[in-house]
Every structure is written in structure tokens, then in C-alpha cells.
């Protein structure tokens, strides 16, 4: 496998970033430890020096310079002793174990860090912390402590830091490569799989590793996407089949009518009649076309940009009122009821059309006459059943618009089918209609992220459009007042 490809993977880059972060972390920890150690050691050294100076100056006060020199000579003979130096007021050394010092150290009293050279050691200079104390009589007493040990400790720590960093980088890089390779292998497998599906059979699906990790979830989503594409493609095919059938039928009629008129018509009246029929037929075709386009648009999600907030209750009442005279003419009583504050975000026009289609259907097929026709003449029509109810209400986070009739209803196994384009059930075939009304209503519901359901109204059909309500705004509720002349009536 090409290493360059491995280096370019996201996983490897992430490992590198982690590596850098842990290196900085390790450096910080070791650095802090080292600095603290140095601090503690120096503090201890200073304390020791202070105690020594206190003791020695006391000895000097009691026994003079001679006693001091004696003590110092005795102490400096012991191994790993401190550093001592006694000088005359002129700076000549009298006793001690320091061979040379930088000049004018003795001028500063107090603590100072300096280089010095021990006697007999011609090697490098050592580092020491010293304190110079001025004794009565002009003598200088210097007490100090070699810092080489601390320095050595710091070196050890520094080395440790470096070594661990090297190991960190080595192990981190290798680990990163290993992890990247593992992930890359799976991604490559998914890619190969996906390419095979794209190039060949869209019904294929990506394989799950079964680990339930994020890659598996990605694969699941890819599969869901493929599923959706297949459904859309199937839909497209279905639409073209539908169009072929249901548009060609009226086109054939249209053509046949014109052809026959040309062949057999003799009087202007006959021609006129044929032309009028042709016009009627083409108007029907236009209607079907418009309905198909509306469905296709709604299913493709067009018209989302034109969506506004509106009250579904108002629209339901509006549409109800539009159809009320038609209902009356047919001897059906249309009962309209709606709650308040049923705010939706969507297309008022499309939702209105969907409701209109449902009411239209209910009035056409939902009357007891239709029930009688469907069940045969033996059943007497139940009196008072000629009612269609149109209602809008809130149900949890959704708004439901319900159109219910007391007609023959739709058998359970037909309910899904009837939502498809151009599907017309047996008892509807004799009546005008294109079989697109319910499909459009369902497409509108889906466009609004809602659903359309057909239910049994016992007896009759109950169509429920369920649409998500618009998020409630914190505004004082406006009392029921329409900007229409309703209040004057």
C-alpha cells in the first residue's frame, strides 16, 4: 500500500495532532518537576549554609580567628563536605577548600550563585551556591555548597524527557499509521463497494462490519440513501408508465373523435359538435397535466421557499365554505369545525388544494347514494347519514385536518393503493375524476413533513392529514378576527 496515501488520511493527521499534544504535555510535566526539584534543593542548601554560618560565627565570637580556622580545617578534611573559605580583610585566603573564585565575590554579602574551582581539581569549574559573611575584625567567612549534584539530576531529567519524546514520536507515528491503515482499509472497502453499486446494480447495498461504530452508521445512512434513490427511481418509472397509460387514453379519444369528424361529418353543426368535444377532451388533458405537475413538484420539494405561516383552521373553514353550496345541492350536510391557533408553516395554496380535493372526494363518493350503489340495493340508506365532516384540530405537536364521510369507505387492502396516481376504484370509474386528487393530497402532506392516512369511519372513509405545527411563538393570542367583512354580516 502506498505510504503517501496513508500519510494523507484524516486518521493519520489526527494521530499526529494527538502526538504533538502529548509531547507538549510530557515536556510540561517533566519541566515542572525539574524546576520544582531545583527550587527545593536550593532552598535546602541555603538553609544548611545559614545554619553553618550561624554556628561558625558563634565559634568565632568565642574563640577568635584561630578557633574558626581550626574548625574549618577539620571540617574540610572530611569527604563531601561543604565549601568553606576564610580570608583576611585584604582578601588573602587563610583556610578553606576553595582554590579559586571569581574576583569581587567576597564584596557581596548574602547568597550568590557562582563558579569556583576546588583545590586539586584542575578540571572544569564547578557551580556552587555561596554566602559571604563579614566577621568582626574585617575577616570574611564564605560558606557554600556544591550544586553539581542538582545539575546532574537536571541532566538526567532532560535526557529522560528527550528519550521519552523520541519514543513517543516513534510509537505514536507507528500507532497512527496502524490505526489509519485499519480505518483506511474499511473506507476503501466501502468505497469499492459503493463504486460497484453505482456502476452496476442500484439494488445492491453496502456491507455492515457489525461493529456499530461511526463507520457502520455511515454505511447505514448510505444504504438508507440508496433505498430512497431506488424508491424515487421506481416512482419515476411508475409515473412514466402512468402517464403513458392515462394520458394516451384521452389523447386516443381526442384523435379518434377528430378523425371520425373529418371522415363522416357533413354539416357545419356536426363539425362544430366534434370540435366542441375535442376542446372538452383537451381541457381534461390539461387538467390531468396540471395535477401531475403539481404532484411532481410537491414530491420534488418545490415551493418550499414560498412557504409562510398560516392558520390551518382558517383554510379548512375557507375551503369548507367554498364547497358548502355544492354539498347542499347534493343533499349532503357539510359540518365544519375547527379549533383555534392551528398555525402551520407551509404553502396555504397547496394545503387548501389538498383539503379541497378531500372534500371534493367525500362529496362525490361519500354520499349514502354511493354506499347504496356499492353495496347493492338490498341495503336501505340510513337516514341522516348524508353528512361530511371537515374538522381541523391540534393533536400534540401536530395539526390534523380530518375529512370524514359516511359512504361506502375504502376496503383496508385498497387504502395504500388508492394513494397512487391514477388509481380509481371500481365504483368511482363511472364518475368524472382523474384519480389524482388523493395522490396530490398525500404529496402535499409529505412536502410539509406530514402524512396522510385513510381510516375506517365505521361506516365511511376518514382521511386524516397530519402536519407538524409551526413552533409556538410567545405572542399574545390574537382573538378570532379575520381581515374579512365577516364581522359585518
Amino acid at each position, binding site marked *: 500500500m502506498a505510504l503517501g496515501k496513508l500519510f494523507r488520511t484524516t486518521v493519520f493527521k489526527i494521530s499526529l495532532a494527538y502526538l504533538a499534544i502529548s509531547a507538549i504535555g510530557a515536556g510540561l510535566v517533566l519541566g515542572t518537576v525539574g524546576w520544582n526539584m531545583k527550587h527545593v534543593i536550593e532552598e535546602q542548601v541555603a538553609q544548611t549554609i545559614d545554619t553553618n554560618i550561624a554556628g561558625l560565627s558563634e565559634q568565632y565570637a568565642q574563640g577568635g580567628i584561630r578557633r574558626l580556622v581550626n574548625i574549618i580545617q577539620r571540617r574540610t578534611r572530611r569527604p563531601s563536605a561543604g565549601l568553606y573559605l576564610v580570608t583576611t580583610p585584604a582578601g588573602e585566603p587563610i583556610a578553606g577548600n576553595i582554590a579559586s573564585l571569581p574576583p569581587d565575590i567576597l564584596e557581596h554579602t548574602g547568597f550568590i550563585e557562582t563558579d569556583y574551582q576546588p583545590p586539586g581539581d584542575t578540571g572544569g569549574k564547578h557551580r556552587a551556591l555561596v554566602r559571604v559573611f563579614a566577621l568582626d575584625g574585617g575577616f570574611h567567612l564564605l560558606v557554600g555548597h556544591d550544586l553539581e549534584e542538582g545539575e546532574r539530576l537536571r541532566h538526567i531529567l532532560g535526557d529522560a524527557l528527550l528519550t521519552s519524546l523520541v519514543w513517543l514520536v516513534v510509537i505514536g507515528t507507528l500507532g497512527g499509521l496502524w490505526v489509519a491503515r485499519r480505518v483506511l482499509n474499511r473506507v476503501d472497502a466501502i468505497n469499492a463497494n459503493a463504486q460497484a453499486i453505482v456502476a452496476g446494480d442500484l439494488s445492491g447495498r453496502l456491507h455492515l462490519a457489525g461493529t456499530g461504530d461511526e463507520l457502520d452508521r455511515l454505511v447505514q445512512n448510505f444504504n438508507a440513501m440508496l433505498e430512497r434513490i431506488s424508491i424515487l427511481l421506481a416512482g419515476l418509472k411508475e409515473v412514466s408508465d402512468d402517464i403513458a397509460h392515462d394520458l394516451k387514453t384521452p389523447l386516443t379519444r381526442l384523435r379518434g373523435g377528430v378523425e371520425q369528424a373529418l371522415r363522416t361529418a357533413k354539416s357545419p353543426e356536426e363539425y362544430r359538435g366534434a370540435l366542441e368535444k375535442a376542446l372538452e377532451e*383537451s*381541457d381534461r388533458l*390539461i*387538467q390531468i397535466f*396540471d395535477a401531475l*405537475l*403539481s404532484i411532481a*413538484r410537491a414530491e420534488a420539494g*418545490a*415551493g418550499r*421557499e*414560498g412557504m409562510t405561516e398560516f392558520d390551518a383552521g382558517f383554510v379548512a373553514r*375557507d375551503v369548507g*365554505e*367554498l*364547497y358548502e*353550496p*355544492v354539498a347542499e*345541492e347534493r343533499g349532503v350536510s357539510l359540518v365544519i369545525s375547527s379549533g383555534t391557533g392551528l398555525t402551520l408553516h407551509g*404553502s396555504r*395554496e*397547496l394545503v*387548501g*388544494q389538498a383539503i*379541497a*380535493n378531500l372534500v*371534493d372526494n367525500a*362529496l*362525490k363518493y361519500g354520499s349514502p347514494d354511493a354506499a347504496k350503489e356499492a353495496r347493492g340495493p338490498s341495503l336501505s340508506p340510513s337516514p341522516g347519514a348524508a353528512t361530511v365532516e371537515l374538522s381541523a384540530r391540534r393533536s400534540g405537536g401536530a395539526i390534523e385536518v380530518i375529512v370524514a364521510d359516511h359512504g361506502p369507505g375504502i376496503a383496508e387492502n385498497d387504502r395504500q393503493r388508492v394513494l397512487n396516481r391514477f388509481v380509481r376504484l371500481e365504483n368511482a370509474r363511472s364518475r*368524472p*375524476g382523474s384519480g389524482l*386528487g388523493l395522490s396530490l393530497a398525500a404529496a402535499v402532506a409529505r412536502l410539509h413533513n406530514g402524512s396522510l392516512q385513510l381510516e375506517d369511519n365505521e361506516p365511511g372513509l376518514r382521511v386524516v392529514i397530519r402536519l407538524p405545527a409551526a413552533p409556538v411563538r410567545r405572542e399574545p393570542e390574537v382573538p378570532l378576527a379575520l381581515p*374579512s*367583512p*365577516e364581522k*359585518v*354580516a
Partner: protein
Amino acid sequence: MSFMRILIVEDDSEAANYMVKAFRESGHVADHVGDGLEGYARACAETYDVLIVDRMLPKIDGLSVIGSLRAQNIQTPVLILSALGQVDDRVKGLRAGGDDYLAKPYAFSELLARVEVLARRNRPGLGEDTVYRVNGLELDRLAHKLTRDGKDIPLQPREFRLLEYLMKHAGHVVTRTMLLENVWDYHFDPQTNVIDVHISRLRAKIDKGFDPPLLQTIRGAGYMIRDGAR
């Protein structure tokens, strides 16, 4: 009825010829140009009562033509003709400065009725009266009252708006879709003859028991309120 000067901007010359002929038969004068650029030039140079503009045109598209005209402060009413007839297309067209929108294919009677309404829009005084009167039928828009020959006729709010629209355009044909659009504010096709039923209800209220009948059905076109006696 006074005649109108109409400019048709349409690249399909056969469709445009039908229109020109049909407008002439209806007693109007119609000119035709085939592309957006020429349409814009003609609309700038001459005075028309209404422009009929196709949306998809060679050189400059229809909506841009309208936009440019409006930018030049030429306020001639424009009817947009388009094969794109869905809700959002209509909204876009009207936003671009169109005054009305008609989807292809259309019935000529529909086009004529709409163009007549548009042409009258720019004539002063129209629709501003507070009382509409047609032969003894009197509609008071402010008081929301309707009387015929002095007798009160109670109307439902929607019936009132329906009659108001018809009387505003008294003497002119109003189509079913125009009524649905202007009285109900819907643009879809309500399969069943809902408008006809509303009209016959209204007719029963304002014409029954009175003479002459004022609310007339114009076959193949729509409806008209007209002083039918003379």
C-alpha cells in the same frame, strides 16, 4: 366597450397570430413582436393599454423585460403568459412586476377577460366608488349593504365579496378562475363546479322576483353583471 391597444411579446408566432386575430375579432388592436429586446423597445416607444409577455423569450427573458420597464417607470399593466403554472412560478412572476399571470395552455375567453380587467385598472376612478349601482341594484361597500329597487337583500360575507367583484367589473366578463382567485384567493382548479353553485345561489338572491335578470352566464367564458334590459 372601448377598444384596447395590446402588445403581445411571444416567440411562438403561430400562437401569437391566433391571439392577434382573436383580439381583432373582439374589436381590439394587437401588435406582435417575437423577442424580449424588441418587446422592451416597443413598450418603451409606444403607448399600450396592456402588455402580454411570455416568460421564456429569446434575447431577454420575459421577467427581465418587465423588470426593465418598471425600472423605467413604465407602468403599463402586464399579463405574464407561461407554461410554468405552479404556485411558486406565479409568485415569482408577480414579484417581478407582473400584474396578472396566466398559465399555458389557456382559453382565449380567459385571456380576454383578464386583459380587459387589466386595461381598465389604469383608467381613473375605477373601483373607487363606495357604492356600485347596476339598474336598481345598489351595493354599498362601506355599509356592507345591498338593496335592489330599495329592498334590502341580506348576503353572506363571501356572497358580498363575490357580488362586489362582479359589480366592480360590471359590463365585463369575469371568469370562474378570476372569481376563485380574487374572492377566495386560491389558484387551483377545484374540479367540481363550485363557483357555478355559488353564483346560482347569489343569483337566487339578487335576481329572483326582480326584472330584468342582471347576473348573466356567458357561455364558454364566465359571468357578467349587466344592465340586461337595455
